[in-house]
C-alpha cells in the first residue's frame, strides 16, 4: 500500500472527500516504556482516519505497537510491527477510523528517550 492507494480510497468516500482535512503530529512522540501514550489529539469533535505512521526504532530490541483510542485502546487496530532495531519505517494504513484521540502502546519495556519515535498522519473529519 502507498499514498496513491490512500488517494483512491479518499476519492471513493464522500465523507472524506467533502469534509476531510489533513491532521498530523507536529513532532514525533517518543515511547520510553510500555505505558499507554497519547499519539495524536483529535481536533474538538473530530473523527480521525489514520493513514500513515512513521516509526524510527533505535532501541536495542525490535518494537511492536498497539494503536487505538483512550486508555484501554478501545477501537484498536491490529498490532503493527515488529519494527526492527536501527530501521526507519513509513507505513501506510487504509484509513483506520478512530472516533477520538489516538493512543499507542509499545512493546519496548525501557527505551531511552528518542530511541523509539512515532509520528502519525491522519485525516480529520468534523472540525
Amino acid at each position, binding site marked *: 500500500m502507498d499514498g496513491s492507494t490512500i488517494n483512491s480510497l479518499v476519492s471513493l*468516500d464522500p*465523507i472524506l472527500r467533502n*469534509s476531510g482535512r489533513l491532521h498530523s503530529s507536529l513532532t514525533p512522540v517518543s515511547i520510553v516504556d510500555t505505558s499507554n501514550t497519547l499519539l495524536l489529539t483529535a481536533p*474538538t469533535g473530530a473523527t480521525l482516519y489514520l493513514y500513515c505512521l512513521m516509526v524510527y526504532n533505535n532501541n536495542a530490541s525490535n518494537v511492536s505497537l498497539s494503536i487505538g483510542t483512550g486508555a484501554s485502546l478501545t477501537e484498536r487496530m491490529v498490532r503493527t510491527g515488529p519494527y526492527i532495531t536501527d530501521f526507519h519505517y513509513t507505513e501506510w494504513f487504509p484509513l483506520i477510523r478512530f*472516533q477520538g484521540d489516538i493512543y499507542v502502546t509499545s512493546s519496548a519495556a525501557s527505551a531511552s528517550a528518542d530511541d523509539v519515535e512515532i509520528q502519525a498522519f491522519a485525516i480529520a473529519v*468534523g472540525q
Partner: protein
Amino acid sequence: MASISVARVYDPQQIQPVVETGQNLGVLVQGDWLFFRVDHVEAVPASRQTTQDLGSVADASSSGETEITVVRAQDGNLLHVRMFPLDDVELDIFHGRSTGGRHTTYSTKARISPSTANLDNYHSLSTAFVFGKDRPMYINAYNETGYALAQSRVRFFGYRYRLDPLAPLVGSALRKHIRGIELEPGEMDLIKNLKVTLVPAEGRE
C-alpha cells in the same frame, strides 16, 4: 400586476440566497402563504458551530427524533439550509416532531446518507427552511453500518433572512392573485409594482 417568481431551491447548483435585502418573499407555512419584505440577508457557513451530534447510535438502531437546535430560527427569521452527515448514518428529516415528514413518496420516506452526495454534489436535495422559533426541525439518525457509532454528526449551512411582514391588505391581495382569484381595483393598485419570490418553506401536509 405583481410579478411572482418561484425560487428554484432544489436546482443542482451551489446554494444561493433566494432574495436579496429589500426584496419581497412569499413563504408557504402550513398550507398558507405569508408575505414579507426581507430587510437583512446573511450567510450561515458550514462550521463546527453549525454541526449537531445526535449522539451515539448502536448498530441497527437509531438516535430517535432529535430537535436540531443549531438551526433554530429567531421569530421573524427564516433559515434556508442544506445539510450533510459527517458520520456514516442515514438521516430521516422531519419538520415538527413526527408529523412533518420530509422526502416522502406514497409508500416510503427517503433518507440522506453520506453517499447521497455522490449524486447530489451540492446537497441541493437536502434544502430545507426553518420559519421562526416554533417550527423546529427534527432528525432521526439510523446506523446501518454493522457496528456501533460513538457519534452521529450533521452539518448545516445556508442563509438567514430577517423578515418584515407586508401590510395585511397587501398579503391578502397577493394570496388572491396567486390563487387566480379576481382582484378588486383597489387591490390591483396595492400590488401592481410588487415583485415577490415564493419559497416552499415547509413540506407539511
